[in-house]
């Protein structure tokens, strides 16, 4: 459904020194810089798959989404989406995709949402029956029926985002690009959008690419993630595997029985060859342990401390991803 091979995109832009002197100099001679937003990325996405694209600001996520939606042209490489080259922008391709950008309104600000939707009905040539049923389904699911006749610019951010989602999905696209759809929304609105996306996906099965800085979006919605750093993919695989692959440690947390532990005294130190104590007081001890030493470390804890409860946790996915984004993990 989506096939990307060695895709590259560079942007050339001019820079200007600060101050009047810099402005005067720029009048006669411009300094140009080139940013390589994508450095030869390749991927394949199957029908119905939802892929989370994760990376720091400026990593190249939005550039990749814009390329696949046909908004920008690549510097080199190839991509096929539904059998089309996106940046050729033929109408058959555009009728089958949708792009929702959390940071950029695409609806007409001066118009009520319903007028926008009616215009989109004509633009996408949606049959009247399908339009009515889609609109009913989407407005009910997102609970915005009462706001249909309000001008877009008068809606709250959350309501506007819901309208953007409806506008993008009215024509039942086969590929949906979601670029930070929950950015700036409060927790309730974020959850509503996430729930809606999950429900929509299970009912309509479009392929989806989601970019987000909120790990909850990624964890709730995506089984597969692609981590992008400085225009290159550093991980492309199941979200569930990321801990096994990159987290060499687990965290053992023991809740201590305060009275018994008091009788035992401060206790002997935890064997350093089994792990590193990262926190300790009379009620709790937290130890970072290599994966293969977890059974021995747990046993040592149970024998040496008055353990009331023991938890073995993976290092948080968010922490691993953050490390991958920032080049701490290889």
């Amino acid at each position: 459904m989506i096939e990307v091979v060695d895709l590259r995109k560079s942007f050339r832009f001019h820079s200007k020194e600060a101050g009047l002197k810099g402005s005067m100099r720029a009048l006669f001679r411009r300094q140009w810089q080139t940013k390589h937003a994508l450095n030869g990325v390749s991927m394949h996405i199957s029908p119905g798959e939802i892929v989370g694209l994760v990376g720091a600001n400026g990593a190249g996520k939005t550039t990749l989404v814009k390329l696949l939606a046909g908004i920008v042209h690549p510097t080199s490489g190839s991509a096929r989406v539904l059998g089309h080259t996106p940046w050729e922008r033929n109408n058959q391709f555009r009728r089958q995709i949708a792009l929702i950008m959390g940071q950029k309104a695409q609806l007409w600000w001066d118009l009520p949402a319903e007028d926008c939707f009616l215009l989109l009905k004509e633009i996408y040539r949606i049959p009247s029956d399908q339009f009515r049923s889609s609109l009913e389904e989407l407005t009910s699911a997102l609970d915005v029926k009462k706001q249909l006749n309000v001008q877009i610019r008068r809606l709250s951010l959350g309501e506007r985002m819901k309208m953007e989602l409806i506008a993008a999905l009215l024509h039942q696209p086969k590929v949906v690009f979601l670029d930070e759809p929950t950015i700036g929304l409060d927790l309730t609105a974020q959850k509503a959008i996430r729930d809606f996306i999950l429900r929509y996906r299970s009912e309509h099965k479009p392929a989806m690419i989601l970019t987000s800085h909120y790990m909850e979006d990624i964890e709730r919605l995506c089984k597969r993630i692609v981590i992008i750093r400085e225009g290159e993919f550093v991980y492309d695989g199941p979200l569930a595997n990321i801990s096994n692959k990159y987290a060499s440690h687990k965290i053992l947390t023991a809740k201590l029985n305060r009275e018994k532990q008091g009788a035992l005294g401060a206790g002997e130190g935890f064997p350093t060859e089994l792990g590193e104590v990262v926190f300790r007081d009379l009620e709790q001890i937290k130890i970072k342990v290599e994966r293969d030493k977890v059974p021995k470390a747990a046993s040592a804890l149970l024998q040496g401390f008055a353990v009331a409860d023991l938890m073995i946790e993976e290092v948080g996915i968010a922490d691993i991803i953050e490390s991958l984004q920032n080049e701490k993990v290889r």
Partner: protein
Amino acid sequence: MIEFAWMPHVFSIELRKAISYRAQFWIRFVLQVVTEMTAAYFLWRAIFDNNGAQTLQGYSFHGILFYYLFSSLGSKLIQTLNEGIISREIYTGTLTRYLLYPLPFLAYKFVAELAKRLIAILQLIFCLGLAIWMWSLPADQNISFSSVALGIFTASLAGYVYFMISAALEMVAFWQDTVWNLLAMVRFVGGLLGGLMLPIEFFPTWGRAIIRFTPFPSMLSFPIHCFLGQVGAHEWFLEARTLLVWAIVTTFIAAWVWSRGTRRYSGVGI
């Protein structure tokens, strides 16, 4: 294949948008017409009084007032009414929506512009009626129902050419951050060379010969002459043919600039 189903909707929506800003709509309309007509009245009153002539270059004082009435109101059918929108959309990145939707961008923008021009036609008819009621029709001009209809038709054709020129210039925003100076220059120079500020009959012969090489006399002055009933069938056919050629040329230029420009578009902005 060109699809038309969306056009009436875009037209209707743009019409409603234009009317919904009622205060701006009326203030802009009244201020522009009143200001331009007042300036023309006092300027030409003084010229005719000082000169002592009954007519100048074939215009009586009464006739010249109607020239400026058509210049002021007719130009709204020709010159792009919302200049700067396309360049702003490129600059701010809101152009993205038009790249996503399966419709031709320039056609969409032209249909949106047509809605505003329908309002301009209604304004013209209203003001013309008011002027005829106040001053009666000038004896030295052949203003009639058919001349006004021909003027509206010719102005609409000229409006297409002007739109394509404006759009091509606005799309320079794909390369440059600001294109306002280009648009202002075309509006000012075009207005001067096209006879909006001064009928081209008042230009020296050599000046008229030079400006014939630009599209502005056909685009701006010619429709005004149609309104005034000064154009015969043969002359109209020749000028309409010239406009048609300009329409084809400017369409190709605008389409080429769009095709090249969108290759540079990055979709970034505010």
